[in-house]
């Protein structure tokens, strides 16, 4: 049994024993803190795992509380209570999902926009709750809310809340350990790379936010019968801010941290808030310290201490053996890439100037040219990273002009950037898993553990060439630049794309590493049914690998042909000898 489960079970028995060893008022208070803790767990999912911070989480908590409060103002049976609970989860879930989809659509990274929008939403919720008196009771709130049927709000409700906490902990830890959880962590680590592994990251983030919203709504649904009153404060920004502080101080990377944070600060506050005027100033100060010096909060201290005494706090459980073959990916039969008079200008700079060429079939195409020729820009245009102003890029007959990065993979286009781009805080194994899932992981497998057991012939072949990638627990960020290049290359080709784009795959490699890489590329191009485009400066690489060479200069194509033809081309000689055209 994993150590973390032992910890969780002993904490659970403490929670169950709590009302018996203390008084019922303390248990009543603890019940409220546990509800806030559940909301904190949702924040931990978004912030700790996904790397984006929702600042208005009380909105969803409050919506849940108002829904359940309105319903429980009447005498209802368990049937309707179940309906109420479902509504309290589903409505915040959908609201958060829609906001997430809209806001994340074109926002990469953990920028401030999302956080501020959620904060503003909480403020709107607060104003609506105050002004829509007919529904919410306005400033005085909903009063006369009954308890749940046959459950004493000051007694047995506590155990219902503990049950809800157990449920959310189980569900969330299942989610965090699933392929979806790993994708979410990959968003935090390197969102752009994840898009170039074919994932629409805005949906991943929106889904996580929706889950956190639903969970907050569930907690809110219990808040109403627990307190017997729901006022606009439950969805205001003050509670939202406190939720973030509790989560941060308790620890945002796990599921226990947020709960511990709420309970600890909650009990301290109930004792000190009135006696000591500077209490909240101190809490704010502690929060800043945590942000600056201890991002993992109390939870990180706990994990660190458990390592010290020799216990391994696994959050993922055991690493699965690779035992099942990956599903086959559909292969494109005809490979034809065409640039027709593609022009891109930014300001006064002409990046691509009516670039036209056509390549087809298998084999390795090398794209060369002096610095600033537009080689990488051509790849950017091809993969939706750079918007095309005029002209047409087509791949197997379909236009790529309006393609977005995450869509290129499903068209069979895989790309490796010049600077190796990996997920530094994930293990090599997790990096590999993410790339094996490209085009293969179906929606209904997002929560299944099966994809972790996938193996592929190509992976086994690459493990022979680059033995280090078979390591199970090494963190990818600890690799050298050369090894990162190799890992990145592996990740790019593992999805078996029909068109492989490699931007300077040998940059930063030693002589021996370069040879290994060249051999790997050559072998792969022979055995796979893929077209390769390699941007390269190193003529040794070009000589060994190229079946065909394209030369670019100042955004235009100036020559195309075999290496011998290119070498005898006057224009190419002029460009490389430093002359101007």
């Amino acid at each position, binding site marked *: 049994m994993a150590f973390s489960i032992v910890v969780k079970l002993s904490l659970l028995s403490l929670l169950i024993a709590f009302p018996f060893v203390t008084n019922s008022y303390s248990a009543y208070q603890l019940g409220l803190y546990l509800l806030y803790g559940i909301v904190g767990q949702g924040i931990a999912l978004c912030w700790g795992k996904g*790397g984006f*911070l929702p*600042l208005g989480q009380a909105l969803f908590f409050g919506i849940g509380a108002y829904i359940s409060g309105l319903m429980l103002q009447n005498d209802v049976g368990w049937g309707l209570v179940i309906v109420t609970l479902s509504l309290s989860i589903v409505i915040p879930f959908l609201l958060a999902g829609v*906001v997430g989809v*809209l*806001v994340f*659509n*074109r*926002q990469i*990274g*953990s*920028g*401030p*926009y999302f*956080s*501020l*929008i959620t*904060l*503003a*939403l909480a*403020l*709107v919720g607060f*104003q*609506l709750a105050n*002004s829509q008196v007919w529904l919410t009771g306005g400033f005085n709130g909903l009063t006369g809310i009954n308890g749940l049927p046959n459950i004493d709000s000051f007694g047995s409700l506590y155990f219902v809340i503990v049950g809800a906490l157990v449920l959310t902990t189980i569900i969330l830890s299942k989610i965090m350990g699933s392929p979806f959880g790993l994708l979410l962590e990959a968003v935090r680590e390197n969102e752009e790379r994840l898009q170039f592994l074919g994932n629409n990251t805005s949906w991943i983030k929106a889904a996580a936010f929706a889950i956190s919203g639903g969970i907050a709504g569930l907690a809110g649904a219990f808040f109403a019968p627990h307190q017997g009153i729901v006022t606009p404060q439950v969805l205001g*920004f003050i509670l939202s*801010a406190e939720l*973030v*502080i509790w989560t*941060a101080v308790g620890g945002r990377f796990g599921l226990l941290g947020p709960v511990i944070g709420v309970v600890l600060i909650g009990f301290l506050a109930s004792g000190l808030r009135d006696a000591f*005027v*500077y209490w*909240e*100033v101190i809490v*704010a*100060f502690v*929060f*800043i310290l945590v*942000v*600056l010096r201890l991002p993992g909060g109390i939870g990180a201290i706990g994990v660190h201490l458990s390592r010290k005494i020799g216990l391994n706090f696994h959050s993922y459980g055991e690493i699965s053996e690779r035992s099942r073959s990956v599903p086959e990916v559909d292969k494109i039969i005809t490979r034809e890439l065409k640039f027709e008079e593609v022009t891109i200008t*930014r*300001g006064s700079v002409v990046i691509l100037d009516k670039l036209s060429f056509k390549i087809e079939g298998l084999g390795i195409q090398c794209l060369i040219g002096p610095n600033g020729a537009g080689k990488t820009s051509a790849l950017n245009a091809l993969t939706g990273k750079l918007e095309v102003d005029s002209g047409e890029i087509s791949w197997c007959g379909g236009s790529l002009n309006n393609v977005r990065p995450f869509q290129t993979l499903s068209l069979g286009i895989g790309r490796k950037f010049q600077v190796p781009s990996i997920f530094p805080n994930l293990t090599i194994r997790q990096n590999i898993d993410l790339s094996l899932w490209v085009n293969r992981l179906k929606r209904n497998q997002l929560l299944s553990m099966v994809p972790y057991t996938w193996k592929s012939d190509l992976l086994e072949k690459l493990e022979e060439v680059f033995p280090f990638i078979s390591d199970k627990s090494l963190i990818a960020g600890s690799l050298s630049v050369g090894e990162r290049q190799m890992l990145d290359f592996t990740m790019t080709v593992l999805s078996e794309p029909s068109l492989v784009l490699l931007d300077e795959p040998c940059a930063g490699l030693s002589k021996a590493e370069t040879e290994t890489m060249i051999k790997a590329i050559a072998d792969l191009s022979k055995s796979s049914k893929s077209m390769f485009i390699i941007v390269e400066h190193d003529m040794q690489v070009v000589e060994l690998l190229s079946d065909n060479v394209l030369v670019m200069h100042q955004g235009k194509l100036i020559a195309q042909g075999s290496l011998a033809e290119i070498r005898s081309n006057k224009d190419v000689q002029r460009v490389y000898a430093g002359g101007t055209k």
Partner: protein
Amino acid sequence: MEAFATFLLNFVYVSAILALVALGLAMVFGLLGVMNMAHGEFVMLGAYSAYVVQTAQISFFWAIPLAIFVSAIFGFLIEWSVIRHLYNRAFDTLLATWGLAILIRKGVEVVFTRDYKSVNQVVPGTVELFGVNYPAYRLILISIIICIFVVLLLWYQRSKVGLRVRAMVQNPGLAAAIGIDIAILSRVTFVIGVSTAGLAGALLAPLVRVEPYIGLDYLLSSFFILVVGGLGSIEGLLIGSTIIGGTDAVISTIFDKTAGYMSVLIISILFLWLRPDGIFYRR
């Protein structure tokens, strides 16, 4: 006709005030990449400066230097203690300044309590303009704001410091390599940015209720303006202010304050969805 003139003047007034409030955030976020969540708290500090001046029974005029002084001191301390360590960690600056915002709010709450304070109108009376009697203080405010913008724009485009700031924004590494002290320059930019917020707070104090939580509204309106107008240009800031200010004013008048606020929020979400770089984005 009179109603229209009043509406027009109100429109200009609201936009001008919003532009002044957003100016500091635009400087700090646009130039330094720091989303200063404590921006509104500097407006709040400025407003409390005006209240302190009133309590001390000296001329309201002193509120302006006091507000600038207080926000500059706080801005300097915050930059020195927290922000300077985080310039390349955008997300952490968001968190840290969020913490600082709470700290400042709670601190002010301890000193001044949570009660509403009011600052007396200093220039009562109206002036006739375009056939309507318009509050004199508002007209003075509009003129002051125009002056501030002109001075800052000239400073940014003509002065040596402005040139260095622009160099730093475009290429910090190169700027440092040719002998520009980026650390000092970032600090100056941050302090000037938050000082304009403090100044705005002092000027607005007679018009609003002063309490520890007013900052949040100013932070969010400033943020909406940046979303709509786009980063990195004065034109964007002004257009953003007029769109946000105008929408809020019109919808609030027709329906209520909540509807006005919601419409502004919805516009911002739509912008993030469809036009994430704002209206005035030069690429």
